[in-house]
């Protein structure tokens, strides 16, 4: 449905088809791919959370893995040695603490201009990295292995059995759908519109009366919360965390996913996560220098497909029927 005053940009059919394919995928009964796609769906949530900053608000963060890592560590640190943690309490705690960390960092970083913003987010992320890497509390570079997956019980009823990889798969899929739905709805809300205005021209937004600092801080906090959700799910999937989750490699990779998919649409970021993982699998199987190859491929894609994977459909259509190019 096109909104008045906006060209039709929504593609519900493509999204529904992708969702259906993902929902039916476990029928193939391939444990390896089930685990891989679970991981990629979680990364897609992570990438979409960054897209809220990069593609919507115009804030390019190179430290977004910090909030992913915090979400993951909350589960690991809250899991007792001889008991499972409660899913119902650790999940909100992980999301809440990631949001809090992003809020506190945001107070400082959203003030500064673009280049410095990149450096400031990176610096804070490094700080969190060393917080887990170099302290007793974070258990150092070895990380933490959890003896139990979280338990999601209501009374005596076990709602999710995370011992079963399919459960984790469907929980990740559900989270992906919810986050995507929420973010796309947010795009159409006054708040989302204001964020896009800030990306387009912050000074003008200020002279129109918007408290742009508050909007940017809210966006940064929300992005941190969603990254924390992804991190939590990732820790849940693997039962293991280490400081590399917060490293700048991880921050760089998720930024590449957003760029690969095409910033500003959320579905693009999700596509980017899938594309990135696919390329990674293919190159990893083919050569030891897969990182070089992956980097080169992304550079080429960015050069020749500026709108990212999300623009491919419109490009093909334009090539076929001569419609407008994106």
């Amino acid at each position, binding site marked *: 449905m096109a*909104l*008045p*005053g*906006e*060209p039709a940009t929504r593609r519900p059919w493509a999204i529904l088809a992708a969702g259906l394919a993902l929902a039916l995928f476990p029928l193939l009964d391939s444990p390896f791919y089930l685990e891989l796609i679970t991981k990629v769906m979680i990364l897609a949530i992570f990438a979409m959370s960054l897209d809220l900053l990069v593609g919507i608000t115009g804030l390019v963060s190179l430290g977004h893995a910090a909030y992913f890592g915090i979400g993951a560590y909350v589960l690991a640190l809250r899991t007792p040695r001889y008991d499972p943690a409660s899913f119902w309490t650790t999940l909100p705690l992980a999301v809440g603490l990631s949001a809090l960390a992003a809020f506190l960092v945001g107070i400082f970083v959203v003030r500064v201009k673009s280049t410095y913003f990149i450096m400031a987010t990176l610096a804070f992320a490094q700080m969190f990295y060393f917080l887990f890497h170099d302290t007793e509390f974070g258990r150092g570079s070895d990380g933490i292995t959890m003896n139990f997956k979280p338990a999601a019980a209501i009374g005596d009823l076990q709602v999710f059995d995370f011992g079963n990889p399919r459960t984790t798969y469907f929980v990740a899929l559900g989270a992906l759908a919810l986050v995507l739905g929420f973010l796309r*709805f*947010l795009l*159409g*809300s*006054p*708040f*989302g*519109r*204001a964020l*896009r*205005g800030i990306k*387009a*021209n912050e*000074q*003008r*937004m*200020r*002279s*129109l*009366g*918007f*408290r*742009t600092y508050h909007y940017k801080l*809210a966006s940064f906090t929300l992005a941190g919360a969603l990254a924390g959700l992804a991190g939590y799910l990732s820790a849940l999937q693997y039962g293991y965390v280490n400081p590399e989750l917060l490293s700048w490699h991880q921050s760089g990779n998720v930024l590449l996913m957003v760029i690969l998919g095409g910033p500003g649409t959320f579905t693009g970021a999700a596509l980017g996560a899938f594309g990135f993982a696919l390329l990674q699998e293919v190159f990893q199987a083919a050569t030891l220098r897969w990182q070089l190859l992956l980097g080169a491929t992304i550079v080429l894609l960015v050069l020749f497909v500026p709108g990212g994977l999300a623009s491919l459909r419109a490009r093909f259509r334009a090539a076929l029927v001569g419609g407008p190019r994106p």
Partner: protein
Amino acid sequence: MSQPILATRGLTRRFGGLVAVGDVSLELHKGRLHALLGPNGAGKSTFINLLSGELEPSGGSITLRGEEISRWTPDRRSRAGLGRSYQRTSVFLDLTVHENCRLAAQSRLPRGWNVLQNAYASFSVREATQASLEAAGLPVHDLRLASALSHGERRQLEIAMVLATRPEVLLLDEPLAGMGSEEAIRIIELLRTLAPSHAILLVEHDMDAVFALADVITVMVNGQVLESGPPDQIRQSPAVRRAYLGDEEGHR
């Protein structure tokens, strides 16, 4: 005499050694169109930037309804009823024309934080958007990107956006510059209808428009006020003739 809505006292702004605005005292009243004239580099845009909060003054005061506002941020001044347009068009190029105005109108929404509402749900925002687009002579459901507009249309959009915020004080920096004559006439008519209910500061090089519209004219040269008064006084002032009107061709 009525209480001014916006007043400056000894307002000054220096850029290094250059005094771009020096000791300017001026009052804007509701129902009065105050024109600010001056040759290029006189400090007119700098003066507007001081009023809108985009520049900090080096000295002097700005009061809005008697309250000192010279330390307020631009957004706070906007919410208090100050609206400005830019000499160099500053619209959201990658948004549609309609969305440019809708965003401007949205700035008046009490709950701009709402993420659980559609941006088109607010009646007051829709109304302000349509009214301002109409007033500026643009199609009400204009779905072109602002980047696709002609220069003159962007100037119209610039004005529509200010109007959409429903300001009480209008600070307009050369709104007619770059517009076709038909659109210029339209905007002049618009200013005439706005004048009784607004306080307007109009910076404009178009002499015919200024003398047709203004209730008060202030002439600035090199950051200083040369003369201020009703149009007739300005027209007859020898100092103004010498400094400004005399070599009018040089500026337009």
